[in-house]
């Protein structure tokens, strides 16, 4: 009888974790301008906090970001717009100058020829 309790414990955890798994997940990868570790934490943090984004990982070497998001809650276009608002260029939206100027020093991807 007591073991049933543990099984219930487990299955309820399982069901709990799957409550939002049924929704449509989309996986995308595109380039985001950036330079350093500081940019990485800015980009990863900024993107994961967009509602509907489940996973974000920006690669320093390739400058590509992998994103998994719930296509019912957000659109790719709005994710890119949000990234540009953080100060990092994407193919579709560019960062505004004043936002770019406020980036941490190591993130000046426009003036820094090395990355």
């Amino acid at each position, binding site marked *: 009888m*007591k*073991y049933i*309790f*543990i*099984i219930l*414990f*487990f299955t309820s*955890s*399982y069901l*709990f*974790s799957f*409550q*939002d798994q049924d929704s449509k*997940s989309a*996986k995308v990868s595109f380039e985001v301008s950036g330079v350093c570790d500081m940019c990485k*934490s800015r980009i*990863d*943090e900024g993107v*994961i*906090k967009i509602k509907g*984004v*489940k*996973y*974000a*990982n920006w690669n320093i*070497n390739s400058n590509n970001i992998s994103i*998994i998001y719930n296509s019912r809650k957000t659109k790719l276009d709005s994710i890119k717009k949000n990234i540009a608002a953080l100060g990092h260029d994407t193919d579709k939206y560019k960062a505004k100058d004043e936002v770019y100027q406020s980036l941490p*020093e*190591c993130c*000046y991807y426009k*003036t*820094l*020829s*090395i*990355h």
Partner: protein
Amino acid sequence: MKFKLLFFLFFLVLKSYSQEYLTGNISYLNEENKSISLEGVSIYWLDSSVGVVSDENGFYSIPFQESKNKLVFKMLGFNDDLIEIITLKKYNHVMIESSSKLDEVIISKRQKTIQKSYFKTQNITNVSSDELLKAACCNISESFETNPSIDVNYSNAVTGVKQVKMLGLESPYLLITEENIPMIRGASQVYGLSFIPGTWVESMQITKGSGSVVNGFESISGQINVELKKPYSDSPFFVNVYSNNMGRNEINIHGNKIINDKLSTGLYLHANKNSSINDKNNDGFLDNPTSDAFNLFNRWQYINTEKGLVSFLGVRFMKDEKIIGENTQDMVFIRDPWRGEINTNRFDSNFKFGYVNPSIPYQSIGFQMAYSNHDQDSFFGIRNYNINQSSFYSSLIYNTILGSTLNKIKFGFNYSYDDFDEVVDKKNIFYSRIDKSFGGFFEYSYDSMDAVSLVAGIRYDVHNNLGDFFTPRLHMRYQPFEKSVMRFSVGTGRKSSNIFSENQNIFATGRDIQILNKSGKFYGLDSEKAINYGFSFRQGFFINNREGDITFDYYVTDFKNQVVVDWETQGELSFYNLNGKSFAKSLQIDFEYQISDNVLIKSTFKNFDVKKQYVSGFKQNPLTPKNRFFTNIEASTNERENGSKWKFDLTYNWIGTQRLTSHTELVDFDGYSPSYSLLNSQITREFSNKLEVYIGGENIGGYTQSNPIIGGDPFGADFDTSLIYAPIHGALFYLGLRLKL
């Protein structure tokens, strides 16, 4: 053409205030890859009017500008560069011709050997294999001597075993895992840490406080997780030899082979021998046992990155023999000599399997199982102690997210089975017990990615001897500023009371052993249960452009039930259930400062208040220093191009007074041991990245306890080897070599 440019930027740091100059040379690499000085390069601080031009030797000198640290290098035909100058006074720059592309910059920082994270929710200290090298000999229990979080004590005067304590509590109250499989428990509790050779270890994680629910309910004051070397990433061949002036010789040989891109295997061998008879204090007893040990470990690693699979399989065999007692070689006896032997055989096997869905990287599943058999046959004079423990452990864990990776969850099961058979003391009393438990756990973690994170876990276990119970645990972190972090944790823990295996030093005495309770499931005693809570604050700072930090840790372990081991009465030893209060309060203040690029200093003050209710009153734990002070200085020379360098390490320990239990031969002490100091040092010469030689000394001042063995007749009731507050042997010197191919 591709270039790699290496910057050594030592992070951090305040700006220079006085009118100082940044100087350096500017060069470029020509087609033959030769470095040529570059004249006429414009150098200026970004957004400022201060600029200079390099001379014909490529030399430049530019005054520092307050609040400016981005330096621009410009030259027609070359790429413009923007470099952040943080701590440097001298910076040489290599310009790249416009046509070529520089694609990689490596910024490196000297790694500290003990690292505390600002970002982890739990109070975890990571100990790297480099730190383990500082105490060259030889196994994990000895490796903590240079680590302030863990205290190392001798448990008695004859077995040479060092026991570890954390937050003022002995190692049975710690959960010690090997790659997250509970490992040193039950029968192996006392000697287990000494059975893991230091060179096998890749890193260790020391968690203060109750830890995670994932690995079980057992951790009370903390967790130590040991990560072993992995065949895929370890060097193909490694040898370490060690020898000391007490006659101990050790050898470690590792071989690793990568069979194909997925499969690799490693074979690790350790042996040690100590055949010399040492009785430096002339008490007629060997200061340390003569011993022989052999340890063999084979592991297999399978990685398939395309499919997201990783698996480990390991098999290990260990044999250890120790002979202790009176020096029968150099003495003539009119009675039987007091001798003892501790012979241990152990077999371990484990299997681990993990799967990460390559297209959904935040979902993973892990399975692990382990079987071990630990068999110890021993006698101490006329007292016997044999224990055989067979254990099986298995766990299944699933990791996923809720909504986004800011909210992660883990859940799963553990099953553990332990079968104990013991033969105890003069009358060979036989005890047999089976512990079985099955539990489910759920752990939620939240990370705001900046200031706040928390880990909240709960588990429910069904245990045949401990009953059915919940174990809740909570860890929180708040980081208001980049260099300030606060942590809080609270949680409960329980454990079986393996009184004999955890307190084997009782057998090397003449004390009459009594168990005062009858109704409990563990030798008549109840299981142990405690709540642990604590607070930690860490503040980083920069003084003189160098990094440092200061940490305050305060932890309390409050026992709801404990098995009291009562040494208070001479000639007697009793075990009974706690009737009243028992707590361990630990305050630790750490200070760390990088004095120069090559010198790091660490200092720690610890205060322990460990008290419990004995039959004879509410008292401080015996043989537990109330105050301790620790300082470690590590220094090294800069690495030459051929990889050679010198490393120096010095550790100073001051151990305060300790309460002694009453014994007629200790009356002169007036109840408290004297305080004393210990000094350890090591010098390592790295000839290259492959070969290094080390020499060192432990207890260089040679402080020893004057009367480690007391009570006269070793077969009488007053005989005692376990009232130990200081080292038994004096200065120890060693020499060793490491070869890595």
